[in-house]
């Protein structure tokens, strides 16, 4: 079945450094979604990418969807302590409807930021 692999599993950065997490699949993805989970909290939807080569920005966060739609990345510029948490990528099935619309989650990248 469809799987999404996420790397790295952990990342420790100094405040002000950049951070990138990668999501990879062996099969073509119909879309990619990114979620953030703060420690002790619940996953929160950040963004969805659908088009090949798509790039979207949210303030210091840049999201990319690969040209072949098999990989994606989330880049944070100049991390802050408020960026601490686990970042998950997820993808729905190719047909969106029914069980194909269910999300497959990567295992997440846990980001810690040292002040």
């Amino acid at each position, binding site marked *: 079945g469809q799987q999404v692999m996420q790397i790295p599993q952990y990342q420790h950065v100094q405040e002000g450094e950049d951070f990138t997490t990668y999501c990879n699949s062996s099969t073509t993805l119909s879309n990619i*979604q990114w979620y953030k989970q703060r420690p002790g909290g*619940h*996953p929160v*939807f950040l963004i*969805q990418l659908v088009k090949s080569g798509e790039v979207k920005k949210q303030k210091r966060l840049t999201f990319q969807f690969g040209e072949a739609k098999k990989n994606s990345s989330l880049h944070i510029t100049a991390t802050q302590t408020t960026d601490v948490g686990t970042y*998950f990528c997820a993808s729905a099935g190719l047909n969106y409807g029914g*069980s194909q619309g*269910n*999300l497959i989650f990567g*295992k997440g990248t846990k980001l810690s930021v040292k002040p």
Partner: protein
Amino acid sequence: DAGITQSPRHKVTETGTPVTLRCHQTENHRYMYWYRQDPGHGLRLIHYSYGVKDTDKGEVSDGYSVSRSKTEDFLLTLESATSSQTSVYFCAIRASSYEQYFGPGTRLTVT
């Protein structure tokens, strides 16, 4: 947060006892999901519902059952809790663009 609540928020129970977790939503979403989250495993789908009385299994459904008698409520039942079911349980709804919104979670400990 899409008006999703979960109850209870924390529960400690003994092995072999039945446990029911409740998810309640206020925005009439058709699709609802139950996930469990464990260290090293990320989020894994237990069961989902695509309408009243319409449910199906997810990746890790063994030992769990669900029911949805009203649009707003999705119940997860552990018929006979085991220590391997100690976890954090999240309910979620699917929004119109297929993104999901999660409830605050229930931390379940089975002793």
